[in-house]
């Protein structure tokens, strides 16, 4: 299982104010708050940790029929510049992030190494790019591949009654869109 998240940093700057009273306290663990406050660029760390939490949450909801908003319970550990672990309940999710000047992308997975395919695209092209990618892989015609949603609103792709994606995660924010696929 995989889950991803992307953050358009210029939009994050204008849409949210991480320094607002309560913002960190409600969403980040004590340890994460300390890390953020000690960081050389706290703004970037806030959104990197946030995207790790969101990516892990998106893996979790695919496994469990439950929606909720509890970012603080997703406990982040950075094990290197880009890699991290997110613990929720007794489960560990593995994350890998890419931080650029413009965006932060995180891919979360239940496995240490994932074979997921990820592509960065303009938000409006996400669906069509997924279908054409699935066409390449499965040889089914893109025009006959359909997106459906699980009861938990996680996207899944079908050709007729054949499920093509084992796990699919889509995310868009501002100017950036991204999808990650695990083929069935």
């Amino acid at each position, binding site marked *: 299982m995989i889950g991803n998240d992307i953050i358009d940093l210029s939009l994050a700057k204008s849409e949210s104010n991480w320094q607002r009273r309560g913002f960190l306290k409600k969403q980040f663990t004590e340890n994460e708050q300390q890390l953020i406050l*000690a960081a050389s660029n706290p703004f970037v760390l806030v959104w990197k940790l946030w995207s790790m939490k969101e990516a892990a949450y998106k893996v979790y909801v695919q496994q469990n029929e439950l929606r909720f908003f509890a970012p603080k319970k997703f406990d982040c550990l950075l094990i290197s510049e880009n890699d991290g672990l997110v613990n929720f*309940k*007794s489960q560990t999710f593995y994350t890998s992030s890419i931080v650029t000047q413009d965006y932060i992308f995180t891919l979360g997975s239940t496995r240490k190494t994932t074979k997921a395919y990820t592509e960065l695209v303009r938000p409006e092209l996400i669906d069509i790019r997924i279908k054409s990618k699935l066409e390449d892989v499965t040889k089914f015609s893109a025009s006959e591949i359909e997106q459906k949603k699980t009861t938990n609103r996680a996207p899944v792709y079908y050709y007729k009654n054949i499920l093509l994606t084992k796990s699919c995660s889509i995310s868009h924010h501002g100017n950036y869109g991204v999808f990650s696929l695990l083929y069935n």
Partner: protein
Amino acid sequence: MKHRVVITGMGVVAPNAVGLENFLGAIQQGKSGITFHQKLQDLKFSCCIGGVPSVSDEMKNQYLTPLQLRGFDSAGILYGCIAGTDAWADAGFKIDKNSPTDYNSGMVFGTGKSGTEKFREAIYKLDDQKVKRLGSTVVVQTMASGISAYLGGILGLGNQVTTNSSACATGTEALLMGFERVQSGKASRMLVGSCSDDGAYIWGGFDAMRVLTYKYNKSPEKGSRPMSALASGFVPGSGAGALVLESLETALKRKATIYAEVLGGNINSGGQRNGGTLTAPNSEAVQRCITDAIKDANIKCSEIDAINGHLTATTKDPIEIENWTKALKRSGKDFPVINSLKSMIGHCLSAAGSIENVATVLQLKHQFIFPNLNCNEVHPDILNLISKEKIPTKLLKKKLNIIAKASFGFGDVNGCIIFKKY
């Protein structure tokens, strides 16, 4: 012929992380595992904070069978089984209850007490004349060697399987006992480690001795302050650590991951003479333990790159630093970097040595020094002995070849291990 001994697997259940990967992340990040415990306050403890690993019911079921979990109430045995099983699997061995007895592999897994909660329940029943209602597992859950009994069966070990006990030096002693057995060729492999129960019935005695801090009930994460001028007693913790020691030949033969080499070490006692008491160390013996460990490892004092201290956050920390400076004949800027894991997880008592050994080996394997938390104001007596930059408060990436680790325990007992990068 003496065999070289290496570490090929590890497992850990600590207040700030469960599992080796999480633990690696947590110690690099300086994550505290100290939290407030309402039950301690309800029982009128002065110190209401402590370090308790978070283990869910799901996780229990992964390590113990439903039958084993019936009437099970021994936190230390649970932590030990998780850490020990993880270490064994990490070393590349399958855990299979139908596997043949492995006569080449043994275990020294220490603890202080076992099954305190279970024992309490049993005592109430006994006093109520209900001896027949005790159930069949009170003995195995409360005997000192409960942990090696449970774990030995899970893994199917057939060499020496025992539990050692030397208070807060237990984990370090366990490692050295296993080390000697592999070094001498009496076993090809020894699982070594230690565990501790947690909660009021274990910690109460320390609260009564006034050695726990009572000043940080409102800010638990700030409570454990080894080497700090503001240290005011230790914070109790619990958990387990486990390491697989193996002769270099067999490790190489089966292409195991090698975390580090154990070069040597020493265990001794101060005999409660010369300033040593039931609860305080004889400094001469501490220094001797360190110098004898260095001799045993056949290295020079100058080769030690880092120290993982015992450093509990009581008033005794400056004395420990002084003992290191005298034993190594190094001080000021020449002193190695030093840290104490207790700043993150508190003093895990009988489990302390082995959790800290796991952390020390991870530092060697991944070449870093984890930060000392809550130590921005170093104790002035310590600053008279070593320079401030030797006590890093932030994660330090550093080339490391040799780390010395020591543990000291009530009863005036000492242990020191020399680990080397492999």
